[in-house]
């Protein structure tokens, strides 16, 4: 039995597949591929698949990964070949490797956020405001959390979780690049950051696009 890490994109309308639905989709894709994967041995046997880090709904990604276990002798190349045509639209298979890092090593996510405004001045106003708020480390976001068994909204200060923040305005579009804390114990999705800035802003973007570029480890090295 070997662990393999499958890398794939999640782009276009596939960004609206929730984490649970993605798990079921991957299970079916693996089933269709006919690959010899390892089944759990419980009452209800199912293919073993684990996502090192779930992606929030509505965020596109250039590099998502999922770990599976295959029977001895199944090579990464074989997995790639058999799985390639079984991936739904927008979930494009990139590569299959043996896992290099442990999921626990995930510390940050690298994102690009593209915001369209009505006019260029709005984009600039929003860019300046966000630079200032990030600098001040005063941003707070609301995040769904749990208190015992109850679901509650928690306020999370963002100051300590924003890194390498930069903005670029091109006509009426603002492009923000940023690294945010990811994994355990705190996972900040980019829409939370933008939402926190929007609360302070008098101009709001018309369209928002969130893209995850990659995951990073402790020293801002790429998680593989």
């Amino acid at each position, binding site marked *: 039995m070997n662990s393999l890490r499958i890398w794939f994109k999640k782009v*276009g*309308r*596939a960004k*609206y*597949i*929730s984490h649970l*639905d*993605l798990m*079921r*989709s991957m*299970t*079916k*894709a*693996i*089933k*269709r591929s006919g690959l010899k994967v390892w*089944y759990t041995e419980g009452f*209800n*046997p199912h293919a073993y698949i684990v996502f090192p880090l779930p992606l929030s*709904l*509505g965020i596109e990604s250039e590099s998502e990964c999922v770990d599976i276990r295959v029977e001895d002798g199944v090579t990464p190349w074989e997995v790639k070949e058999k799985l390639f045509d*079984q991936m*739904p*639209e*927008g979930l494009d298979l990139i590569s299959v490797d043996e896992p290099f890092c442990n999921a626990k090593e995930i510390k940050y996510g690298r994102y690009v956020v593209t915001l369209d405004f009505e006019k260029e001045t709005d984009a600039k106003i929003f860019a300046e405001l966000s630079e200032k708020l990030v600098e001040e480390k005063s941003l707070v976001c609301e995040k769904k959390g749990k208190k015992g068994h109850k679901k509650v909204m928690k306020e999370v200060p963002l100051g300590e979780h924003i890194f390498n923040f930069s903005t670029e305005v091109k006509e009426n579009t603002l492009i923000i690049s940023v690294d945010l804390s990811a994994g355990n114990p705190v996972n900040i999705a980019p829409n939370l950051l933008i939402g926190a800035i929007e609360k302070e802003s008098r101009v709001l973007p*018309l*369209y*928002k696009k969130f893209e995850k570029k990659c995951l990073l480890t402790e020293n801002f090295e790429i998680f593989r």
Partner: protein
Amino acid sequence: MLSKEIENILQYVQKPGRYTGGEFNSVIKDKNKVDIRYAFCFPDTYEIGMSHLGMKILYSLVNERKDSWCERVFAPWTDMEEEMRKNNIPLYALESGDPIKDFDLIGFTMQYELSYTNVLNMLDLAGIPIYAKERKSLTPIIVAGGSCVCNAEPIADFVDITLPGEGEEVTNELIDLLKEHKKKGSTKEEFLKAAAQLEGVYVPAFYDVSYNEDGTIKEIKSTNGAPEKVKKRVVKNLDTMFAPKEFIVPFIEPVHDRTVVEIFRGCIRGCRFCQAGFLYRPIREKSPEVVNEQCKSICEKTGYEEISLCSLSTSDYTGLEDLLDRLFDWTLDKKINISLPSLRADNFSSSIAEKLAKIRKSGLTFAAEAGTQRLRDVINKNVTEEEILSSSRKAFQRGWTGVKLYFMIGLPTETDEDVQAIAELSQNVVNEYYKNPDKPKGRGVNVNISVASFVPKPFTPFQWEAQDDMETIERKQKLLEDSVKTKKINIGWNDSRMSMLEGVFARGDRRLSQVIYNAYKLGCKFDSWDDQFDFDKWMTAFEQAGLDPKFYANRKRSFDEIFPWDHMDYGIPKKFFEKENQKAHEGVTTPNCREKCNGCSANKLCGGECHELS
């Protein structure tokens, strides 16, 4: 591909996966290379519509044609509708994201009377005039199919065409015809006249209905050369009939997410309340080889780990054991589970039960339908209490700790004793569990009883009967509730108000189009959803139209009354139903079709022999 506008609003709605499309096996074509664009609409949510086998069949069937592209459309939930209206986004098809108002054919499948307002709302969302007469151009043509169109009169003002019967063949003929008339540049009327000549096509606008003073129908007259009687379509051979080789694999979980293959159409039983049992006659089986191949293909192409065999009564399939053997040959290895819905309590044989023991346990359901033998004889549900108890006993011995029982209240000739007997029968099932010496220690039994309110339907022996009014149903519900003495029995009801409306529209005439329109205008939609259903608005809609729902639901008809659906021919003469109705009132049962031919004539639909009544 979805437009930026659509993608943008999806971030504000619940379950955006309902509205994205792009699922594995969904079909993308070049719209410039097809002649006919077909929007297949299901007037309920994505999760319900994607569970519907008919849609899967017709989707694959139309997309097999190079000249046509079939796409799916579901009713957007209220949050999505709000966003769409706010942002001027018209109803679009999931595959292309294109507005459906530009399509050639828009087909609705009508499974349930309470989805009529959703049809109107979807047309409006699409920017299409709701009344057929207001749609002047050739396309889009609005078509409706499904079991409800055996009496399409309540929606007669809105649809251009309905397709009574089975759609596999007539859909292709209709597409061919529309393609031809598009090329010729025909008017809508020219096309409809030609369409009305196809077997299994009904054009409501070509029939004039006149009424007596008491509100009953005086006469139904065909015009424009349309046939006097519209015959339903029947596919003769199920082995050679089109069946999908693959299903779309939804991202979000539909109600039923599995491989489904039909094993036969029709039913040998002749339960007198059951519309499906008569609408889909005659009985036609698919051979085990063909079913097995179709199951295999769909599993391979979807990755599904469950197969459900579909029919009105699984255990009446003559090839069941053969089929199970074939399926087990490959499914066990692949960890694929098989479920057999609609098993009858009287022939849950031990050899089948043994085979079923190999697969994962799912719920067991027995349809007893009525509490006493007298009433079961009236409705011709030929199953005895002992059969139900022994089936339960066998199930408990094999490790089940719960069963589900189906009952109805409000059946013709029902007395309070019949209602109370439901509780007694359920209690006897509970007792069976405790009689089993090998019952699991420390575990109780769960008997869930689902008690539906009986709704008389067209093309059944009970089509003349009065439906119990809401007060009577509620009194009987209370009576049953009080008769159940243990917490081991859980009761589930139907909303008596929904059943009443279902009854009105099932046997209604075309004057009810006005009521549906009024209700839609008042904001009624998703009427089968408890949290959306607004009964008061419906009552207002009836009042505005000057119609009384009781006239349709709670009135007993005489045998010589002309029904709103009398110009539909489903292959069984009214006379057969009349005889069955009389036998019901005498408490006399009718044997199943394999024991003895009862002369319903349905076999003639396939060119077969028939011992018709004299």
